[in-house]
């Protein structure tokens, strides 16, 4: 199974790894990101901006064709104690992580429904399932994506558009600063596999859900090295 895939956040980190993985499997990938990506079609767009997303879709359809797959990997992360998260930080996290996911889905899914085929994989987080410490705003947005994914999966199940989520554990990407506590031995030693998840493992999980048509709906798959069991 191949076709046209839109990957948001494709310029770096997980999004870039997913775009690479899908390209390697024969997909024609449009990378939607604020920054240029290495995808076949690089579209610079703020995914939380509805009008900009509509223009990105138009460019994608005009260049590569209608998307068969959407992967929403655009996101940001920061650690701030709950009592110190200010309104700007809270709003920005909601806007990029949650509203960005929702706007991309709202733009791309109607075409999939019309054609009676499509696959959407949202990128949530293990922290959105089990919680964390020091990133309440991030975990809240990722938990919201999990809930949204489950609701959308049920809503679209009769249309043959499948919606699933990959909820990675702490991953070895530029999103984690070099001095992040997630990289510290004191954290890693608490994990059954005692290591960070590799981006290629997460990309493989996304590809697995996309390419196994009809077998997975509303699944939240967590490559997390055992962080949340």
């Amino acid at each position, binding site marked *: 199974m191949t076709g046209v895939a839109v990957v948001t956040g494709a310029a770096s980190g997980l999004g870039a790894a997913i775009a690479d993985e899908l390209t390697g499997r024969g997909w024609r990938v449009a990378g939607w990101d604020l920054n240029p990506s290495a995808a076949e079609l690089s579209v610079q767009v703020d995914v939380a901006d509805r009008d900009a997303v509509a223009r990105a879709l138009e460019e994608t359809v005009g260049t590569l064709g209608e998307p068969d797959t959407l992967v929403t990997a655009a996101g940001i992360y920061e650690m701030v104690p709950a009592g110190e998260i200010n309104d700007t930080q809270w709003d920005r996290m909601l806007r990029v992580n949650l509203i960005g996911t929702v706007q991309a889905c709202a733009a791309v899914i109607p075409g999939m429904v019309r054609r009676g085929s499509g696959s959407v994989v949202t990128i949530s987080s293990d922290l959105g399932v089990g919680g964390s410490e020091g990133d309440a705003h991030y975990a*809240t947005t990722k938990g919201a994506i*999990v*809930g949204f994914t*489950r*609701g*959308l999966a*049920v809503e679209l199940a009769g249309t043959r558009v499948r919606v699933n989520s990959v909820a990675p554990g702490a991953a070895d990407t530029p999103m984690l600063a070099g001095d992040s506590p997630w990289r510290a031995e004191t954290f890693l030693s608490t994990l059954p596999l005692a290591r960070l998840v590799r981006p290629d493992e997460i990309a493989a999980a996304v590809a697995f859900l996309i390419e196994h048509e009809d077998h997975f709906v509303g699944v939240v798959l967590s490559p997390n090295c055992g962080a949340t069991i």
Partner: protein
Amino acid sequence: MTGSERVMVVMAGPSLDIEQFIDRLVAQGERVALIGAQVDSAALSISGDDALEPTVALQRVEQELGPVASLVCVTAVPPPAPFVGGEIDHWSATVGDALTQPFQMIRASLPNLRRNHSGRIVLIGAGWLLSGRPGRTAAAAVHGGLVALVKTLGRELGRDGISVNEVVFDADHPPPVAVIADTVGYLCGPYAAGVVGQLVTVGSPGEARP
């Protein structure tokens, strides 16, 4: 400290009959300050402009009733609406408000709760229960976010002596308000300090993580 000495702050929300809820808590001996609605049995009701600013509202509670022992937030449950073809801007605003309002109230309460090195925070919501039903993407997103918030704050605030939990019920088939109030009373009471980051489901089978 007895129930009648503890001050419980309740942030009103649309998913409960707030008068019945407050009446039951008061009957249990709680001293309730209600923010966002007026109920006669509450020791203090704050509505209007003061209710819109959590820091101001909580200062009034402290000045008039004393230190806050627990905060209870009744969260919103957005109504059913299809996602595809729906009003996405409205969806985004509704979900954003439903996540932001309890967070702002919690954030404002932390200095007070930390000062006492003891406290309870209880959210009341739908948990994951609505996430498997069509037309409920907004409610599912709100409560997915709140579940993660509860678990995160449960981990983060425990060392400050603050326990954070959520009382969960099926908003489409709600249990009696009295049972929800009794569950809140238990979680805010002296024997539940060790209950942390839990989703306590009322009136439906419990739910596992997704």
